[in-house]
């Protein structure tokens, strides 16, 4: 029970942070948000096969109880895809900033000022 609470609250914190960051105006924060979201999703998928401690996922002569191997395979696929996508979105955000001169997601002629202190204020 305690393990489940720990994992669940960790996923919840990650998702809360991710939603906050994804809704920000600037691409860098949005990319961070997407990364947090993908961490949360990976943890969640991993837990979807139930939390089992100290059990192998593949066959072993000496063991009688196993953990579910399928979520681990799913997580591996999800990690690979989200890793590639994160790399892509970073490059895309950079190119967009260099070509349009704005690092805002909606990109409506907002020049990027050097002053980036207003984390909680927004534009």
């Amino acid at each position, binding site marked *: 029970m305690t393990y489940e609470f720990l994992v669940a609250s960790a996923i919840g914190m990650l998702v809360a942070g991710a939603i906050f960051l*994804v809704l920000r105006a600037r*691409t860098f924060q*949005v990319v961070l948000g*997407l990364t947090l*979201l*993908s961490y*949360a*999703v990976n943890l*969640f*998928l991993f*837990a*979807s*096969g*139930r939390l089992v401690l100290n059990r192998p996922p593949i066959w072993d002569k000496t063991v009688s109880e196993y953990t579910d191997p*399928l*979520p681990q395979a*799913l997580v591996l*696929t*999800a990690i690979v*895809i*989200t890793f*590639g*996508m994160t790399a*892509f*979105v970073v490059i*895309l*955000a950079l*190119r*967009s900033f260099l*070509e*349009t001169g704005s690092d805002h*997601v*909606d*990109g409506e002629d907002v020049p990027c000022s050097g002053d980036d202190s207003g984390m909680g204020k927004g534009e």
Partner: protein
Amino acid sequence: MIWLDHLPIAPVAIPALAAPLTLLLMRRRARWGIAIAFAAVLAMLGSALGLLASAGTGAVQVYAVGDWPAPFGIVLVADRLAAIMLVLAAVLALIALLHAVVTGIDRKGWHFHPLFQFQLMGLNGAFLTGDLFNLFVFFEVLLIASYGLLLHGQGPARLKAGVQYVVVNLVGSSLFLIALGLLYALTGTLNMADMGLRVAQVPAADQGLLRIAALLLACVFAIKAAVVPLHLWLPRTYDVATPAVAGLFAIMTKVGVYALIRVVPQVFGEGAGAAAWVPAPFLWPAALVTAIVGFAGVFTARTLSEQASYAIIGSTGTLLIAVAGWQAATLGAALYYLVHSTIAGAALFLVSDLVARRRAGFADACSPGPDFAGRQGVGLMFMAAAIAVTGLPPLSGFIGKLLILKSVAAQPGWGWAWGVILGTTLIGVIGFARAGSAVFWKTAPAGEAGVPGDTASADWIAPLIALSLLAVLSAGARWATAYGDAAAAQVLDRAATARAVLGEAGA
């Protein structure tokens, strides 16, 4: 015959092989690269037609990848619905590829052809797969290729729209994974047919989680289908995409609709216990609002391609009004309209490109410009495309809308559906007539940007093929609607699909 047994994998395998070949050949021998791209699309069309014929008998062809049996291995399921979508994708790909090559847009960047093939691989895979996680993987394949195709041709406007498109779809993919995790935790399977059998046994305490999973999944498909209020990414994206690419993207929203038609009856259909038809009550009002917003956008759009983008949203809304009935009759009408609206939307994008290429300085803005060569011809094609999209006779849109009106008349709340469909048709007609008369009838002085556009190439071929296909679709409506109705009945018969996929165990 051993070759026929392997036919279901062909639509996925052909583009997967063609993509690296075009990548290698486009550098030095561009002609060969283009030839391979065309050969691959034609082979895809051939295999799709083969599947259409073999699925037409009512058989569900199940292909176990690696010969691993169904609930454990990954299966491809080729039934009537999948075959319709495969043929539609291949036909649309042929039109878009032809337009791209004729207008020379494919040589504006290095990787148009490989990305195009990977896009087709993702589309075909999504139509064929019988496994929910595999559906996610193929969605990612088609999305990753679409990111590249959207950015094809570069420019600040495309990059700006690209960032938004990618972010929206990444969030959508995360939601998809959460829904998958929930469903796996509750049912212990990812095979759609198997999941459909097991959702009925989910204990009462977990029904809440099951509902959340179903609604999240419907949400993800609604993002792909650009259903209001999740449509905001679409107009800007399709507006800035290269027109040949936008023509191919006309099928991307229909992938979302396809996924809804496939997953909701199979997993949350009749006999799914307390969670049966959970997404249905939300889809119906959303579809009505989508149709209104889409055709209102047609009325207010400033360029022809923006108008085409909103027409795609509107037609998706009309389509979902029929889909949300979840009866064999409404789904059958929806499938006919789905095929029609995809080709009509693509034709509209290609015609807007014809205008843009001929009016240097004015592009495809809905405002009077100087006279240009071939104005009457392009104007006629625009009229035909607009007639098709709004659903006036004699093209197939009329038959499609008539079928939808007829089938929803038996539904509760049909008055709303009739009002919305007929009202949006009127708004659409006025919107297109306004844009058409501004572009093709009025003239304005050329100004300083009086350079005539490029009219040398025969760029009118691809849109003309699309429009004549719509004429064929209305001429062959009897056969097409019969096939669509049979496909709808097959989709709703979840027990038969489960038997075919899982063998006797699923009976």
